[in-house]
């Protein structure tokens, strides 16, 4: 797989957009404009962008509570996302869902999820529907290392194998599930081994290397499309920020955080494309600048968008 200038630009654009979006979301949260809590994926951009870059536009994803990156990588409009974080009517969920529940059904994002492992069983159904309707699509189901321990993960693995479904499970191993140190207990390679146990390929990949992620996901997608069934991929990465806005982050070594900062996926990719003479410094700066501009536009849009009308509070629970 050759890295073209166009692809390099696209991957970098998405990663920069996600970073800028989440830094702004964090700021807006601190200013009291975003309610509840948010979970940012700063440092994990290569995992979402690399994976989703292997999809066609009509493929599907299922996302997690840490889902801004998945959403943007799948092509969501930052304006509608920011408006959702601000709880506005113009947001993806009309202000009903918030950060943890962003869904862009038309764009193939079947939803972030507030329940750890909540998407894994649903992926079975998405895979089934694709197969029953004889479509040539696939679904990427993202989940965290924390979901590995949960029954939902194991039941789903059995079913996708049994029905030979076009489902790719992507575990983003960012080493921690809140304070639980998955990374101390099991390496990504060890987690990947469970794929073999259930009867599917299990592959661990450097989750901060966007091209490496893209490559293994592309191979899994190709297998799924040609009827060769599901795969399990573990992207080895790191949650650089606290779990959420309510986490004091008292359980990990600051040195460890620093070490991972040095492995920043965006810096790494920038270095690669400049070393290979694919993009100039100026082109890279332009990309970062564009990301900042669209996030600033999104913020303004979200600030100015109207609140949901109180009279509509009971609408939408049931289909008519």
């Amino acid at each position, binding site marked *: 797989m050759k890295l073209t200038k166009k692809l390099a630009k696209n991957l970098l654009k998405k990663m920069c957009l996600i970073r800028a979006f989440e830094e702004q979301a964090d700021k807006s949260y601190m200013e009291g404009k975003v*309610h*509840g*809590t948010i979970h940012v994926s700063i440092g994990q951009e290569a995992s979402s962008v690399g994976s989703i870059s292997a999809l066609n536009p009509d493929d599907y994803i299922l996302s997690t509570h840490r889902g801004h990156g998945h959403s943007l990588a799948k092509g969501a409009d930052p304006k509608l996302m920011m408006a959702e974080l601000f*709880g*506005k009517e113009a947001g993806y*969920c009309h*202000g*009903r*869902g*918030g950060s*943890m*529940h962003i869904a862009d059904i038309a764009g193939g994002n079947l939803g972030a*999820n*507030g*329940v*750890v*492992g*909540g998407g894994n069983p649903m992926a079975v159904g998405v895979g089934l529907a694709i197969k029953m309707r004889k479509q040539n699509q696939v679904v990427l189901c993202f989940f965290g290392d*924390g*979901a*590995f*321990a*949960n*029954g939902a993960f194991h039941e789903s693995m059995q079913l996708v194998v049994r029905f030979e479904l076009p489902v790719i499970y992507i575990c983003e191993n960012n080493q921690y*599930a*809140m*304070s*639980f140190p*998955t990374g101390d207990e099991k390496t990504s390679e060890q987690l990947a081994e469970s794929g073999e146990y259930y009867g599917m390929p299990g592959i661990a990949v450097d989750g901060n290397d966007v091209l490496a992620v893209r490559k293994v996901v592309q191979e899994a997608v190709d297998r799924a499309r040609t009827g060769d069934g599901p795969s399990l991929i573990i992207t080895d990465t790191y949650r650089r920020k606290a779990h959420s806005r*309510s*986490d*004091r982050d*008292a*359980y990990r070594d600051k040195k460890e955080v620093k070490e991972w900062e040095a492995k920043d996926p965006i810096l790494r990719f920038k270095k690669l494309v400049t070393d290979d003479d694919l993009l100039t410094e100026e082109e890279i700066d332009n990309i970062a600048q564009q990301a900042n501009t669209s996030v600033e536009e999104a913020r303004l849009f979200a600030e100015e968008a109207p*609140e*949901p009308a*109180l009279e509509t*509070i*009971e609408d939408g*629970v049931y289909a008519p």
Partner: protein
Amino acid sequence: MTTREIRYLEAVREAMIQEMEQDETIFLIGEDIGAYGGAFQVTHGMMEKFGPERILDTPITEMGITGAAVGSAMLSMRPIAEIMFMDFVTLASEQLVNQAAKIRFMFGGNATVPMVLRTPAGSGVGGSAQHSQSLENWFVHIPGLKVVMPSTPYDAKGLLIASIRDDNPVVYVEHKLLYKMKGAVPEESYTIPLGSADVKREGRDLTIVATSIMVKRSLDAAEQLAAEGIEVEVIDPRTLKPLDTETIIQSVIKSGRLLIVHEAAKTGGFGSEICSVIAESEAFGYLDAPIVRLAGRDIPIPYNRNLEYHAVPQVEDIVEKACDLVKARI
């Protein structure tokens, strides 16, 4: 007794610490209850105090956590399981509903399950649809389970100690917005018997039966209503099961008017049970007006701040309903 002001979450913690100090069979199990201190800091410092043998930090395994409590309780341990948000009791409910609740009866009384499952319910912190539910009435419906819902720091401590010492599975429902509430709590250990309601304020014009956060809101409403000459009696059942029906019946006989306030969705909520208790009791004949239920709307909790606020009863809603009710006639 030496009494001082502490917060609700500190009262919950103190109950656990004091019980653990005098009963070695008690242990805690749950997600992020160790170094993290629990998602709401309820178990803060307990790992340092009791160590990993008695503070069992787990991966994300709600059914496993609950099962660990059930099984160990059958062998006379006294586990306290923490489920981080009440929404996730959905995942724990197999072990709780099919196993814990049934074991004593189904095995002919040959085994008991002395466990507590602690969990925070409620909206008001922007948790949106999957982190804000109040599901207590599901468990009220299950014979074999007890359901406790403290509304003050004092009650939180006394009821938790009673729950730990109880030989049955107890679902102990905390409220996220109450965690920081301060109140007078004795330093010494004490219990509040499960099945005893508390009259939080006396009054003759109207009875309000409220649970959890709605007790505080009803008391605030009662204060405003008193300024308008309406004397409200506020009753907190404190335990939904067993339910102290007598205190509620006597109050309704006295006031002739009943307003029930809870946060959970109205349809099939605990208010329906209180309504039925009164309808079936001698108090029915004393009613001067139809019973009114003020509860959460029949919608998932929305994210938007304003919608979230209006999804469940607030002080002004209680004042308004109470004013209507004192004027109403059968």
